[in-house]
Structure formats: C-alpha cells, structure tokens
C-alpha cells in the first residue's frame, strides 16, 4: 500500500504546528540536492519537509515516522558532496536549522551547548562577542551546521592543532531511530573512562543512527595574532618532511595544507580576480605547503621565522604575500570580491568533483601519480590534489583528489564515479581509508564500507539496528548498494 504522506504530514503538524511542516513541491524542491555530483536535471524530492525547533519536536517526527516505517533524512546546510542529506527514497526531511540557539555558554569551563542546527559561522560570531572561538573550520562553515559537521566528520582547516570535530564534542543529545531522546557523552569535560564513548559513534554517522539535536563543545579563548605562509617544494615528501620537522621542533602549528600546483591555481581564484593574472610559483614546484600559526604576536613571529627556516633548509621557496592572502581568502576568510565568489564563479560550465581518501603520509607522491593516472584513464580533466592534515600534531591526511565533471553528460558522471571507486580502492590497498571527509553517503552507500570494514561489518550492522531497528534513518547511505558504484565492475 502506498504511503499516505498527507496523513503523516497532518499527524506531525497537529502536534508540532502546521507552520513547521511543508509539503508543497516548491517548498520541497530546495531540499532535493546537495553538492554531490549528479545529473544536472535530477531531482530527489522529499515527501515532507519539517523544520523542528526543539529536540521534542524531532522526537515527535521520528516517532511518527517509526510508526509508519518511512525514511527520515536529517539535513544541515546541504553542502555535502556525497548526497548524504539527499532523500534517496523520499520520506521526511528534517531541516535541523530551525534548532539554532545557543543554550548555554560556560565561560569558566570553556564549553558551549548549542542546538545542532546552528551554523559554525553563526556560533563563532556569537562567541566573538565574548572573545571566544570554536576552531572547527570547514570551508562550508557559512552553511555547515554543528550537527552536520558531526554527522559527516568534515575537514577543518585547523585540524593539525585542534583535530577533527570529535576532539571538540563533549556530549550530545540524540533522537534515535525509534524517537527516544538519549543523552550521550559528558556535559562539561571531554575526559571520561566510564562506560562506552557512545557519542563518538555519531561522528561520521551521516544521520543513519538518529538526529543530533543538541551538542556541547569545547571552545577556546580567541587568539590575538595569526600568520599565514606558503612554501613551494619539489615533492610532497619534502613538504611532509618540513611539517614533521616543525612538529618535532616543538612549534604549535595551527594549520597545514599541501596542494599540487593545479589545485593551487584553483585555490588562487581570488588572486586571479583581483590581479587579472595567474599566480606564479617557482618552476619545478610539485607541492605547495600552506601553514599558519596563531597566538601572541611574539610567539607567532618566532614560530613563523623558525618554521620558514626549516622549510628553507629543505629547499622550500617562500611564496609572495599577495598570493598567500588570496589563498587564505579562499580557504578561510571567504570574503571574495563582491559578486565574484569562487564556487559559482568556477562552476558555470563544468563542476568540481572529488574523490576523498586518507593516504599514509609517506605515500603522497605515489598517490599524486596514481590520481593523475586514474583520472586520465577515466577521461577526466584534473583539477588538483589537496592534502588536509586532520590529526593533532601528526601528519594524518585527508586528501581531496579533484577533477572537473560535466553534469550534463551522464557518461562523464559514470566515469567520475568509476574514478572515485578506483581511488577509494587504491587508498585501501595502501592502508588508508576510502573516504576521509565526505563520508560514504549515497556515493558509496555500503559498497566500500563492506571492504574497508569487512571484519567488523556484523558489529557495524548490529549497532545500526540497535539505534535504528526499522532502518528508517537516512536509508541509502552507508549501507546497501550504491547507485553509482558497484564493486567488481
């Protein structure tokens, strides 16, 4: 029997209010895609969009969905790259951004408790009033919510100092797949050896275990100064060596990015717009290391000089300031020339598409060659490789291997996904991970997870069933067959 979504919408509206429930097609259309590579004219419409404002609202929605056995898809800023928040099988889309309040700011213990739908930018603009800072910093921070950052385990510019989002989450409130409200983790301290760290299960869970509604995060006093530099190296290995030396020297480095020269051109879009020319780098450059230091003026100054000395000793060449500033604008400040924002400006004809993988630090040069080979084999134009460092004070990588994709050409899209699969399998073959910041999403669904976690697949499935016995939470993601990627093809 077909699901009667009108009835479900009415049931939800009767309890949480009709002003929070949307069923018209023009209302649902905005929720039909994220930033994943998919045909330009494809639509994945949710049947209902709901905008709850509290944990209790979410519990009501999930309980009703559970009773009817219909999909629930939580969404944040909808900027994900793998269709993680796309309603693959329709269902009820929960727009968590109605839950956007700061519930408690504890300046003595440096914690903040927020509703999960607040964006990272909004949180930081509020914290700034108190001289505080939440350092998790994905490029999508203007749209990305705290809940979605946990659910996707997205990358952060400042990962080498502050880690990924798991280093920041003290505790959270979850509405599980039955509609029960559960508090996980601690309230004021990150450290506990009691029980299990269940809140860590939510890191990268992609909405498959429930809806995160409240989160307590660690925060920091806002630093006073920051310096940004770029150094050109002949190999990725040299750049890696430089970072390891900087860490070994005892410098408190804030961020590390290593780009190939093509990716560098993409990320200096702001420079091209401002100066009308390509950003120049020394001939023979293969890897551009980007580093920042933050703290007191004197400390930052010393750290910078010492770090650049190390880089020069390893034959690194420091890049001019205007280029560095343009890159930093692109990466962190996001204040582009008015009307010249890089993403839409660079995606008019072909779009950005990336395979993401974690590559062992000693194999980046090899990975770069593999990237070029696999892209070429699949007939894709290279956009470039970017290495993000995401573990505190150690060079554990999250790598974006980006290519251009024509989303009007289905064959091009298929070749893209074949390329993604090959890069994922390659990463696994050298001891890395098939996805490092995008998640499994619709892209892999369960295809690569089944290989990467073949020994623990039973446990993973059991955990899913405990949290979500009817498997209504974000179906089509992390589990089951992928629409695009089939192993053995």
């Amino acid at each position, binding site marked *: 029997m077909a699901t009667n979504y009108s009835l479900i919408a009415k049931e939800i509206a009767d309890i949480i209010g009709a002003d929070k429930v949307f069923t018209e097609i023009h209302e649902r*259309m905005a929720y039909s895609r994220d930033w994943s590579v998919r045909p330009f004219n494809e639509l994945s419409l949710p049947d209902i969009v709901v905008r709850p404002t509290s944990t209790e609202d979410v519990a009501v929605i999930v309980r009703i969905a559970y009773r009817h056995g219909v999909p629930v898809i939580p969404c944040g*800023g*909808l900027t994900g790259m793998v269709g993680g928040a796309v309603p693959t099988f329709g269902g009820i889309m929960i727009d968590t951004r109605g839950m956007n309040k700061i519930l408690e700011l504890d300046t003595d213990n440096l914690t903040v408790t927020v509703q999960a739908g607040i964006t990272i930018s909004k949180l930081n603009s509020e914290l700034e009033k108190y001289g505080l800072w939440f350092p998790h910093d994905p490029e999508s921070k203007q*749209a990305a919510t705290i809940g979605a950052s946990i659910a996707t385990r997205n990358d952060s510019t400042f990962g080498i100092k502050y880690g990924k989002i798991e280093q920041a989450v003290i505790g959270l409130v979850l509405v599980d797949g039955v509609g029960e409200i559960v508090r996980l983790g601690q309230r004021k301290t990150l450290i506990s050896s009691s029980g299990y760290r269940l809140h860590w299960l939510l890191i990268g869970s992609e909405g498959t275990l429930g809806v995160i509604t409240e989160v307590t995060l660690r925060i920091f006093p806002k630093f006073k100064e920051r310096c940004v530099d770029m150094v050109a190296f002949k190999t990725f290995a040299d750049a890696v060596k430089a970072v390891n030396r900087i860490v070994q020297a005892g410098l408190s480095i804030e961020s590390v990015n290593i780009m190939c020269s093509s990716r560098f051109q993409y990320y200096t879009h702001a420079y091209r717009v401002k100066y009308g020319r390509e950003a120049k780098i020394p001939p023979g450059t293969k890897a551009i290391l980007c580093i920042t230091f933050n703290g007191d003026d004197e400390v930052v100054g010393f750290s910078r000089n010492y770090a650049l000395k190390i880089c020069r000793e390893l034959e690194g060449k420091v890049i001019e300031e205007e280029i560095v500033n343009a890159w930093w604008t692109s990466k962190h400040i996001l204040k582009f020339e008015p009307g010249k924002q890089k993403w*839409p400006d660079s995606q008019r004809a072909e*779009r950005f598409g990336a395979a993401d993988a974690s590559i062992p630090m000693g194999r980046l040069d090899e990975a770069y060659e593999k990237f070029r080979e696999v892209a070429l084999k699949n007939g894709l134009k290279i956009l470039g490789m970017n290495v993000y460092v995401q573990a505190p004070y150690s060079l554990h990588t999250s790598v974006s291997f980006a290519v251009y994709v024509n989303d009007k050409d289905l064959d091009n899209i298929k070749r893209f996904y074949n390329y993604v699969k090959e890069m994922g399998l390659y990463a696994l073959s050298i001891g890395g991970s098939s996805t490092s910041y995008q998640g499994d999403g619709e892209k892999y669904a369960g295809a690569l997870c089944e290989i990467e976690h073949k020994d623990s697949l039973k446990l993973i499935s059991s955990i899913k069933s405990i949290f979500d016995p009817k498997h209504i939470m974000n179906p089509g993601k992390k589990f089951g067959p992928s629409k695009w990627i089939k192993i053995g093809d």
Partner: protein
Amino acid sequence: MKIEKYIDNIYTCNRTRCGFCIDECPSYREVGVDFYTSRGRLMIGRGLIEGVIKPSPQAAKAIYECTLCGYCEYKCALENVKVLEALRGDIKESGFEPEQCRYIIASLHNSENPYMKPKWSRGLWIRGLNIKKKGKTLYFAGCTVSYSSYLKGNARNIVKILQKIGLNPTYLASNEFCCSAFLHMLGYEEEFQKKVERNYRVIRNSRCETIVTSCPFCYLTLKKEYSEILGSKYDFKVLHITQVLKESIEDGKLNLTVEMNTTVTYHDPCHLGRFMRVFEEPREVIRAIPGINLVEMRKNRFDSHCCGGGGVLLAINPGMALSINSKRLSEAIETGAEAIISSCPICVETFKRKIKYENIKFKAYDIVELLVKAVG
C-alpha cells in the same frame, strides 16, 4: 518564460549549492527554510522551467517575500537579483502576483507613484520656494520623499542646501515621474522599458546636465538601468545627494558650524551601498559635522543588513518587513549610538515608523535632516 534567459545562472546554482546566500538573507532570517533563500528561489526557477512546479499563490509568496536587498548577489557570482525579478515577472504572467503588486502598478500607471497618492499633490512641498523652471542641475525628489509623512520638509531642505552651495536646481514639479524602479522590481520589464523612454524625454526637455536625487532606488534606476536601456544618448550625470554634499563640504561651499555632541551610527541603504557602492561619501558627510561621533554596526557597508523596506516587502508582508527592520534597529542600538542615520527615504521611513509604533527610545534621521541642523 522570462527566467529562461537566466537558465545558466539557475543551473550553476543548482550544481553548486555553496550556501553562501543563506545565513544573512533577511527573509531566511525570518522564515528559516531553504526556499526563502536565493538558492531555494533559483530552485523554484528550475522547477518552473522544467514544468515540475506550477505557479501558485504559495510559490508566489516565497518569491515575493524577499527584499531584493542583493546580499545574495554580493555573496555569489550570479545575477541573483535579476533572476528574482524575472521570477516575479513569470509569476505575474501566470496571474499569481500578490494583489498589493497590482495596486502598486495601477497606482504607477494612474498617478505616477506607487503609493496611490494623487499626481497633482506630488510637488506641493515646493510652495514658497523659488525654484528655476530650467537649469543644468535637476533635483529629482522621487516618490517617497515627495509623499511620505515621515519625511516632511526633507525635499525643501535638500533644495535649500543645493541653492546654498550654488547649484540652484530645477525641479519637474507635477511633471516629475516615478523612476519606475517598482516596475522593474515586480518583473514588469516591458512596461519599464516604455516608461524609461518616456521619462528620458521629460528629463531631456528640462535641459539639465546633472540629476541629483536623495533616493537610492531612483539613483540606481536613473544611473544604471536607464543607461543600460538607452545607451549613449542618455548622457546625464546622475548623483546621489551624499556625493554632492561630500564634495561641497570638501570644497568649502558648505560650512557645518553647529556642534552636535551625539553618537550616531550609519545604515547603508542596499541600493546605494551594495548595489552602487556608495559607502564612504555619507560617512564623510556625517564625520564632517562638528562634535559628532560615528560608530559602525557590526554589519556595515557590503555586509549591511537590509532595513526590510526593499523589494516591495512593506506592501506585501508588512509584518515581515518590520520584523527585519527590528533586527537592524537592534544592531544599531547595540552600538550605543543615540540615533541611526541613513541616506534612503525608504530606510529612514521604515526606521521611523518602527520607532514610532513601538515607542522605542531611539531616533532615526535622514542624513539631510541631520545636516540641516549642523548648517544652522
């Protein structure tokens, strides 16, 4: 369909989904759903082009409840505002435009203003002033300044100041027309073009060389839109009053002698600031007033939040417009200033209206209102 012209914009947004247009969008801040953002509205455009969405009063609501403040365009690389105007045009063609828009358009056609005021009363403010019939500088008052009860005396003050600095403006009086920005904003592109041709003839007959206006909507429309349609034959110099004032103060033609020991903040009108990039002139004029302390709101210049009065939202959903206004007023009050100054009659009227309705202990002034006090 009008939006088909912008199909590339729509599909670029469709494939990008960067979300830069969301968080500071005034209507999103009110309603909080994706279809009240630029990217959501462009998706409605895609739905209309593909025939997935049929025009409806509900879809019209999402399209028209927007201040057209241009924040999305500033944060993007697409022609977001033009797409939104075209979307309004298509909704209008399908017969679902809000009825308030029809009243505005009827008023524009019948009496040359969007406020349903009689045409003959447009120039009543001029009584007692000695204004030349023809001259090189034309003062273009615009509809809001001409009719608003919140801006009484504003046009007279502007003329007196222009005379004081030796510009001796001429004025079209009952021949003055609506610049027709409203036609443009409501998607009546063809009618707009016709009005532009007619208005051009009226301006040409005045034999002016320079047009001075205090309304940013008129300023943008007369300077940019008219030029785009008329090409090189439209060779008038168009200035906003703040540009004239700034130059006159610098040249010593306008002396500000009265001390005003007060702290004020300046609100950038969207059409003067974000669209036309006139940010510093009004600030320099304010700073030139002896004793005045100008403080900035956290969101200023390009990042300025809208006052809520744009895009005809005040007529379509006054509750939403005034709620947007309330947020901006709070930002002004947060600075510790005693008053908010702006250089747009619609912004000033919206602030004054809100302050009056809610009896808020705060002041709103048009920049000329302030300046007149400083001239003494």
